[in-house]
């Protein structure tokens, strides 16, 4: 997730740079229409997905709470990962080709990604259990 977010960061910065340079010298008439792609790349692709990746990593693990997987329900996290990237593809490059319906579908997929990641994270919103072991903290 974090590496995917970094790719979106690189793509978003290139598009932003292109739009900024277009203000100085004319590049192509389609360049200003890249604004939606730029916004979705940097807000959903980079910022939101980076937050997902970091949250997936740092929230308390659930092994001690009876969950089979240490991160609880990873299926929802994978769903969020797929939805946020699908949403970006629809709302960014997809909207350039297919217009507003693709943008709406993409935004919906991005919203569903947030819901899915919330469902993944919900059981992990608890304090970590104290470790059982010697007083020096070693297990």
């Amino acid at each position, binding site marked *: 997730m*974090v*590496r995917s977010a*970094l*790719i979106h*960061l*690189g793509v*978003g*910065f*290139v598009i*932003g*740079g*292109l739009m*900024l*340079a277009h*203000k*100085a*010298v004319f590049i192509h008439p389609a360049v200003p229409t890249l604004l939606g792609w730029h916004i979705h790349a940097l807000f959903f692709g980079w910022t939101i997905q980076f937050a997902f*990746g*970091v949250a997936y990593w740092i929230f308390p*693990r659930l*092994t001690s709470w009876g969950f089979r997987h*240490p991160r609880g329900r990873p299926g929802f996290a994978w769903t969020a990962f797929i939805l946020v990237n699908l949403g970006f593809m629809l709302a960014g490059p997809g909207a350039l080709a297919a217009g507003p319906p693709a943008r709406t579908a993409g935004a919906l997929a991005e919203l569903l990604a947030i819901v899915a990641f919330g469902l993944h994270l919900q059981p992990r919103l608890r304090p970590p259990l104290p470790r059982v072991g010697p007083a020096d903290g070693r297990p």
Partner: protein
Amino acid sequence: MRASFLRPSGRFFITFSCWAASPSSFSGLRGGCSPPLSRERPRGNEAAGWAGFVLLNAGMLLRAVAEPALALEPRPWARVLLILSAAALVLAGWVFAGLLWPRVKPRPGKEG
């Protein structure tokens, strides 16, 4: 007069980008929060990290000067500054991503 930089979207862009360019978020995320790269060089190439930080801030400053100047009166020097700003920002983004990329890995012994 094309004062697009004064519109709410322009103000949002400047605020958001300046936050992103701030030392706490840029070098903080890259330098402090991510897993260390190695014992010898925990933060990778620190010179490149500082170069990215300078490029990002320089790009934003150049943009803050050139974009209003270009909107008020199109002058060649403003165009050059705006292109330099765009190049600096793109380069900064790629430096940041390139430095963070190898550090996205599990900490030893913390798998799972």
